[in-house]
């Protein structure tokens, strides 16, 4: 009978966290911020087919970085979770808080029990009637859940991007101002030529405070360009 090697839980957790962090740090970042007009989600994403930002429910959006197949799986189960709740109870009973909790469970379980932890970071954002009612949750690979205010960045250079956002973000900003600040923050960590960081490389979506029902809207390249040009 073979005896398995002893690995201390501390060591195991550290190894798993290092592994997940390494995977996530390779990815491009996403910034989610509040604005007087709603919630703005901006991703550095040249692909027009593989999205990092998605609609979950009437007032809930999802943003992710890391391994595409892993967060796509989480996105689909999030939509199922929310549609199932809304269908079984009522549309008003679907909340970002319960969804974020479900994600935290899944990611936490994967971190300790699965063959390898999930190499993803998520943001679940819920639009309120006014800015103070917005809810933004950040989930990391080990299932830890943080309640964020104002703006939050995920991905490789999240800390640096948050720092740049912190210098410009104000709660009174309109969508176009927040978009400019987000692009600046994402661009500041970009090694490539800043000039190339235009609408074509951005994936942008909003939760629009002026709309009722389904408030999520993906912006087209033209709409992004127009927003970037308005001051």
């Amino acid at each position: 009978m073979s005896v398995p090697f002893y690995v201390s839980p501390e060591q195991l957790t550290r190894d798993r966290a290092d592994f997940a962090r390494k995977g996530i740090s390779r990815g491009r970042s996403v910034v989610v911020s509040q604005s007087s007009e709603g919630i703005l989600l901006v991703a550095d994403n040249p692909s027009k087919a593989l999205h990092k930002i998605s609609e979950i429910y009437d007032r809930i959006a999802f943003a992710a970085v890391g391994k595409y197949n892993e967060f796509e799986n989480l996105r689909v189960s999030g939509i199922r979770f929310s549609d199932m709740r809304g269908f079984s109870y009522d549309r008003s009973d679907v909340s970002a808080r319960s969804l974020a909790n479900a994600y935290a469970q899944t990611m936490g379980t994967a971190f300790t029990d699965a063959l390898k932890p999930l190499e993803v970071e998520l943001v679940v954002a819920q639009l309120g009637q006014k800015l103070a009612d917005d809810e933004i949750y950040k989930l990391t690979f080990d299932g830890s859940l943080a309640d964020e205010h104002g703006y939050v960045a995920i991905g490789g250079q999240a800390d640096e991007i948050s720092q740049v956002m912190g210098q410009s973000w104000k709660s009174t900003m309109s969508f176009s101002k927040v978009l400019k600040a987000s692009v600046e923050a994402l661009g500041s960590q970009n090694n490539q030529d800043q000039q190339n960081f235009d609408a074509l490389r951005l994936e942008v979506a909003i939760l629009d405070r002026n709309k009722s029902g389904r408030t999520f809207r993906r912006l087209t390249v033209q709409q992004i360009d127009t927003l970037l040009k308005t001051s």
Partner: protein
Amino acid sequence: MDFSSSFYEHLRQTQGERLAFKKDGTDQIIHGTTIVAVAFTGGVVMAGDRRATMGNYVAQNDIEKVFPADDFSAIGIAGSAGIAIELVKLFQVELEHYEKIEGMPLSVEGKANRLSVLLRGNLGLAMEGLAALPLYAAYDKNRNSGRVFSYDITGGRYEEHDYFAVGSGSLFARASLKKMFEPIEDSNFAIQIALEAIYDAAEEDSATAGPDMARNIYPVVVKVDSQGFEKISQEALANILTKILKGRKNRPDGPIARHS
């Protein structure tokens, strides 16, 4: 992990009991009644009366039987109200669910086909007398036109041309539309003849109600075109109905069809 984009399949697999209904005494079931759809160039109008009956009683005089299915289509329902409303709710989530997971909406044919599948799922109850029959109207972006689909209880799907009606008053409504329909661009004309058709159906079918001017309860009328789904406002309906009623004062049977 299955990667189906269908909410219905997911619900059936995980909470199948959520789909089941059981009820005895079919004449105690609330029934819904006349729904018409009329196409115009570039879109389609759908209208439904407001009466629900239980046997020979009027169960409700302001029920709504026409709903948005998604941003570019409408669904109207006749039959057992409980089943019908549940069907509409499921169909709405089915379309939204697909759109969110796939990142784009289904084609018009795809939507019409999904409704077939949902209906077929209710075949057992339909055979026991608890049937719900929808009428589906959608704006087709590729053709820039309105399209109308009717169904039978087995999920059979039939595309109709120009106009159609379902429900207990549908024969009379269809006969009315047959004489009035003209393929023109004006959505107001489509709204007008849809309301005339419901008026005609209400005169012949006891389970269909005409406009209740005393209580301001008018048929629900919706329009779907390139601008999306729009519910016609109470004020606009009041205007059109006042004209229709004025016309009927002169000629109670309604406008005379032009003959050439």
